[in-house]
């Protein structure tokens, strides 16, 4: 967007006060999506998060599980690496155990519904394709300087994610990522 276009858009936004203009004017680099690519462990791992937590993504790729902000990590086994790097990327049926693709995330949800605690907590979940109770699909590709992914992940069963109290739960995640690849090393 050149300077003149920005001035015109800003003026229009001031007159119209539209919602879309808010998003354009509020661009905050700290909240933009970023992704870290890690291939140290024989598994190709992509960790997604917002730029204000960029410094933490490397630790997550190494196995850390911070529970103070939202993030998503996808592990791709070596047999799918070349396909991941192709323009089409990979498409994974999560009900199939053919490839040990992992999906891990920390997300916001209520703290403990069984205990009537509906305040907000960050919860952790981690699955491997083929796990009991897991369904959905996952698409992921590396396109130049960007990592692009779309995930529909559903799991149901007895879980202890809510403050350690076992209870039945089903969680569905619908996520779209188009994130700039970063290197923290």
């Amino acid at each position, binding site marked *: 967007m050149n300077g003149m276009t920005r001035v015109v858009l800003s003026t229009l936004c001031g007159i119209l006060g539209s919602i879309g203009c808010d998003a354009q004017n*509020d661009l905050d680099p700290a909240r933009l999506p970023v992704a870290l690519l890690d291939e140290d462990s024989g598994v190709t791992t992509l960790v997604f998060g917002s730029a204000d937590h960029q410094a933490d993504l490397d630790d997550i790729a190494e196995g850390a599980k911070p529970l103070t902000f939202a993030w998503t990590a996808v592990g791709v086994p070596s047999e799918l690496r070349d396909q991941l790097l192709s323009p089409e990327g990979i498409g994974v049926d999560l009900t199939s155990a053919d490839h040990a693709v992992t999906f891990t995330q920390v997300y916001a949800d209520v703290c403990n519904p069984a205990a009537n605690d509906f305040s907000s*907590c960050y919860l952790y979940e981690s699955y491997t394709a083929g796990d009991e109770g897991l369904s959905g699909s996952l698409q992921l590709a590396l396109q130049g300087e960007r990592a692009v992914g779309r995930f529909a992940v559903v799991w149901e069963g007895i879980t202890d994610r809510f403050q350690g109290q076992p*209870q039945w739960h089903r969680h569905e995640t619908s*996520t779209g990522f188009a994130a700039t690849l970063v290197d923290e090393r």
Partner: protein
Amino acid sequence: MKRGTAISASLLLLAIIATRDASSQIANLDWADEFVTGRVNVKMIGSSGHGTIDHFFDQNGSDEPPTWTWMGGQGANQGGRANAREKVMTSWYEGSSSCFGVTINLARRRVFPVPGLNQGCNSGQQTPVGSVSYTKNSCVFPAGDWDISMRAKPVFDFALDTSLVNQTAGYVSTISSTSSSGMAGASLTGCYAISWF
């Protein structure tokens, strides 16, 4: 008429009356097949993820505290339990370039016996059944992922209620919204009864 015969006849009459009442009651109930118990409006706007979330358990179309009401009747077999589905209608306006997600949670508790109609939802002995949640993330940049949609999610059927036959069960539902952006969360509770036959 012998005494025993008189007692049997009285019991039969009571049974007929009870059956007629139950039949009449069931005949007047809607099917509890697919029903919406709440509406949520989510607006993901701006870089800080500020926005508004409004939701309510629609009872009497008013802002009065929700009270027990009839949802309807449903067969107590596997097909009926799967066919009875509680839904939250969620409208999403995603106009943000930021990376964050919003989760809508629907939690259910079972109540026996069903408290009287018009009593508050906190009445009765409550047992947790379970919960379902739906998280929608948007971490797409550059912008162009603006998304306006209406989704019937999350959905919670009654497959877990395997022991309810010829009983009326009460359910307390709590709909909650939380966000990874710091957006203010909210929750609201409603209650209803289903006649399983």
